[in-house]
């Protein structure tokens, strides 16, 4: 099935989104967001894949060997850096929410404010 890897990406995106919707903990929500973002890794790598292609490193194989697309892999590196920064900021916010409200449950936070 030629679109199966793309469907895996869509599935990861939705599963992560479900985690965010149903979560009762901000740290858990942050990890769910990481799952959502990992769907973009699968999608990018799937788009650049070539049947029989090697990794785009020509230290051991001669130039001209069929290799997968290095551009999407470079984009994925950017993706990982962005994810690391987003996770760091969200976890810092979770620490401060715990300090300010005494809970990291988004539902209880709403109750306290309302």
């Amino acid at each position, binding site marked *: 099935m030629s679109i199966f890897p793309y469907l895996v990406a*869509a599935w990861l995106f939705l599963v992560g989104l479900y985690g965010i919707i149903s979560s009762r903990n901000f740290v858990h929500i942050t990890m769910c967001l990481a799952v959502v973002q990992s769907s973009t890794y699968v999608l990018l790598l799937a788009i650049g894949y070539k049947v029989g292609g090697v990794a785009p490193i*020509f230290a051991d194989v001669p130039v001209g060997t069929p290799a997968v*697309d290095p551009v999407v892999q470079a984009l994925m590196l950017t993706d990982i850096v962005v994810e690391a920064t987003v996770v760091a900021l969200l976890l810092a916010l979770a*620490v401060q929410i715990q300090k300010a409200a005494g809970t990291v449950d988004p539902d209880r936070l709403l109750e306290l404010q309302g």
Partner: protein
Amino acid sequence: MNRNRRHVLFFVSAAVLFALLAWGMHDLPPFGHYRGPYGDLVNSATVYERHITDAITAVNFDFRGFDTLGEESILFMSVIGVGTLLRRQTKERKKDDAGESDELETRRAPDPSDAVKVITLGLVGPLVVYGLYIVTHGQVTPGGGFQGGVILATAPLLVYLAGDLKTFKHITSHSLVELGEAAGIFGFVAIGLLGLALGGQFLRNVLPLGEAGSIFSGGTVPLLNLATALAVAGGFISAIYAFLEQTVEMRMEGEE
């Protein structure tokens, strides 16, 4: 909103979204049959034109070098954001002075065993060497400034795992960490300006390209990798310190 109603709303909209995604993905090139010209072009050109054998590093630090500068700035800003969010507030200072010794006792972790200490401290040296290897060989084999920088930043974490809090605090709160982070960003910009001055374009690869496959190949790329590694390692150590400070500071105060 009620939890059940929220779930119903999610499942309905998720089904619609999944259908739209599947519809959109249906017309993508079939898996394994990559069409685009850019990947093949980069793969065939890097070794001859840039003497770089790792095409991904070539994309990140040469063809797309300007984007990587933006990427590094995102990391830099995020570390500043984490530091700002987790800064010690005046209220907390007072709270610490009042001394919540009961809470501190429960927070205090047991001392790590001798086996953990020997293994973690013994790994620090090899880990630093490995990180530097990854940083300096980014243009030859998989690796580079981002990956190597993160590996280097985990070395202080091993010191923390070994229970040596004073050394950990000494390493992570050192002003050299911040200096390294800033030097990494400015080094990247400086190499870019060198390209502007000598080649007429920002981040143009103006240095001698060297022999493909050797550590001194790729012109400005190894230097950009070094700058990135400094910025990434400094940034991650600062962020790790900001997070662990929340517990470590209290533990250290409790011990004294």
